[in-house]
């Protein structure tokens, strides 16, 4: 045992916000499908409670055994549209209520999977589920929702894109008295991963086993501290090496926790998601890492390049540290959850257009961005279409989680509290894409889809 290594680990946890962000248990609900909606909802509740009853306790015990904070314990489930398809005339709201009740019973802090996968078209349960999202997110507390509108293989379903602009706006309006929080629990994806442990976009894909443990690591504070401590006078090649080494250590910790959780709960280990997930805590910021590389402020020219380096180095360091990686894996850039991004957005240095460019090289997309409440649904659909196009063409996951701040204008702020943070409302280009959006149809899959 080397004293320095021991003290390094303790310092990472005590002073640099190192933690495991989430242990997410994915549960398949395919065996809960039933043409009787009441019986289906009861089966959903029962199965989640049965499978996840020891999840929170196991997470807390592992946290104490290794001395590592494990911030969240969560569940993800089969996209509920699959279950709603068996009883298409009944309201899917009962499933949202069953998920919420189950999440409260087992003590997790979010449950994801009020979702539909409509990248190639709508199935029987999809319309009803999507239309019910605003009500579901209004009337439940812990349920998260996501809709996949495009893939590299299938192209982009523009009818779904049009719909989702309106759904996001309605969700914000229904929760306007709670800082529009509903929209913070709704993600629109292109190339959604089936094993993502992070909210709000987690769901348990149809190709997954009956039950699985996925772990999401974190650690922007540790990477930033490493650059601060050892990065003076380094070339970018050396900075990339430094980030790789740090990401390796962070991921090994995630792998250890994932294996232990899998062993204790007798559930197979799925993946470790190698993500740098920021929190609003000062220091635990992805923006500060970019600034630590030498940018005056996040959003300056050079930000996209710095983020590309970071995103790649995190993956290279992490991939050797884990036996199975997946999910989103990379650097997140959720504006309201990152102290440095909040400051940069407030000062006007970080704009929506710059963020859009950054999403071409980060792990996800436009995340936790507050926009003016009077933004028309078509413009939100336009934002979604742009993001989906970036994801589709680059064969990567992209997503949109914007929060229309009902009754407020650019420059004012929304405050969600907790991990979701707070942030300024950002300017949106007001020129209308309405005619383009209302054409409907599909954007065909690109040449990149023809790999066979």
């Amino acid at each position, binding site marked *: 045992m080397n*004293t320095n290594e021991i*003290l390094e680990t303790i310092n990472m946890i005590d002073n640099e916000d190192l933690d495991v962000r989430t242990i997410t248990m994915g549960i398949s609900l395919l065996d809960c499908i039933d043409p009787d909606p009441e019986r289906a909802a009861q089966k959903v509740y029962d199965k989640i409670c049965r499978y996840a009853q020891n999840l929170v306790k196991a997470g807390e015990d592992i946290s104490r055994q290794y001395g590592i904070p494990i911030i969240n314990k969560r569940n993800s489930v089969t996209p509920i549209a699959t279950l709603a398809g068996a009883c298409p005339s009944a309201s899917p709201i009962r499933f949202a209520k069953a998920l919420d009740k189950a999440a409260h019973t087992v003590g997790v802090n979010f449950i994801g999977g009020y979702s539909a996968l409509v990248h190639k078209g709508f199935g029987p349960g999809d319309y009803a589920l999507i239309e019910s999202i605003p009500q579901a997110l209004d009337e439940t507390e812990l349920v998260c929702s996501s809709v996949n509108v495009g893939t590299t293989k299938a192209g982009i379903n523009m009818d779904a894109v049009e719909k989702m602009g309106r759904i996001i706006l309605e969700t914000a309006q229904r929760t306007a008295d709670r800082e529009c929080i509903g929209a913070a629990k709704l993600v629109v994806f292109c190339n959604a991963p089936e094993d993502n442990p992070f909210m709000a976009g987690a769901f348990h894909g149809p190709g997954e086993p009956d039950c699985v443990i996925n772990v999401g690591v974190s650690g922007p504070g540790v990477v930033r501290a490493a650059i601060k401590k050892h990065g003076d006078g380094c070339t970018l090649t050396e900075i990339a090496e430094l980030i790789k080494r740090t990401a390796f250590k962070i991921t090994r910790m995630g*792998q*250890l926790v994932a294996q232990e959780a899998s062993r204790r709960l007798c559930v197979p280990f799925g993946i470790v998601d190698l993500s740098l997930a920021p929190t609003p805590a000062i220091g635990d910021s992805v923006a500060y890492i970019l600034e630590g590389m030498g940018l005056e402020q996040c959003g300056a020219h050079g930000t996209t390049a710095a983020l590309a380096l970071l995103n790649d180095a995190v993956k290279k360091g992490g991939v050797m540290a884990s036996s199975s990686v997946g999910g989103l894996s990379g650097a997140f850039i959720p504006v309201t959850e990152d102290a440095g991004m909040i400051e940069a957005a407030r000062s006007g240095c970080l704009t929506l257009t710059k963020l859009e460019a950054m999403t071409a090289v980060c792990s996800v997309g436009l995340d936790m961005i507050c926009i003016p409440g009077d933004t028309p649904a078509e413009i939100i659909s336009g934002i979604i279409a742009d993001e989906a196009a970036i994801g589709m063409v680059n064969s990567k996951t992209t997503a949109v989680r914007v929060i229309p701040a009902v009754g407020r204008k650019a420059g004012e702020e929304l405050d969600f509290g907790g991990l979701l943070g707070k942030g300024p409302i950002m300017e949106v280009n007001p020129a209308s894409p309405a005619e383009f959006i209302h054409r409907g149809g599909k954007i065909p899959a690109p040449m990149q889809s023809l790999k066979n």
Partner: protein
Amino acid sequence: MDKMEKAVITVIGKDMVGILAKVSNMCAEKDVNVLEVTQSILHDMFVMVMLVDITHATVKVADLADTFDALGESLNLKIHVMHEDIFNSMHRI
């Protein structure tokens, strides 16, 4: 024979009389065997790292951590008890 299970106890804080005694006393109370101790004073800060055998401990690591947490608080020191696996996995390939 069972494989030896080990944990690392670290104590960080202001130096004073009897830290080692109190910590090792607590170890003895819980049937935790001390294998190795290194300690140093860095800028007035007392830093001690103990490698201990917890194979026959009367309590689990998690509960041991709570016990030492309380002891640390009463002495105004930071005491961590962590299973050795965390260090092995982070720093060894």
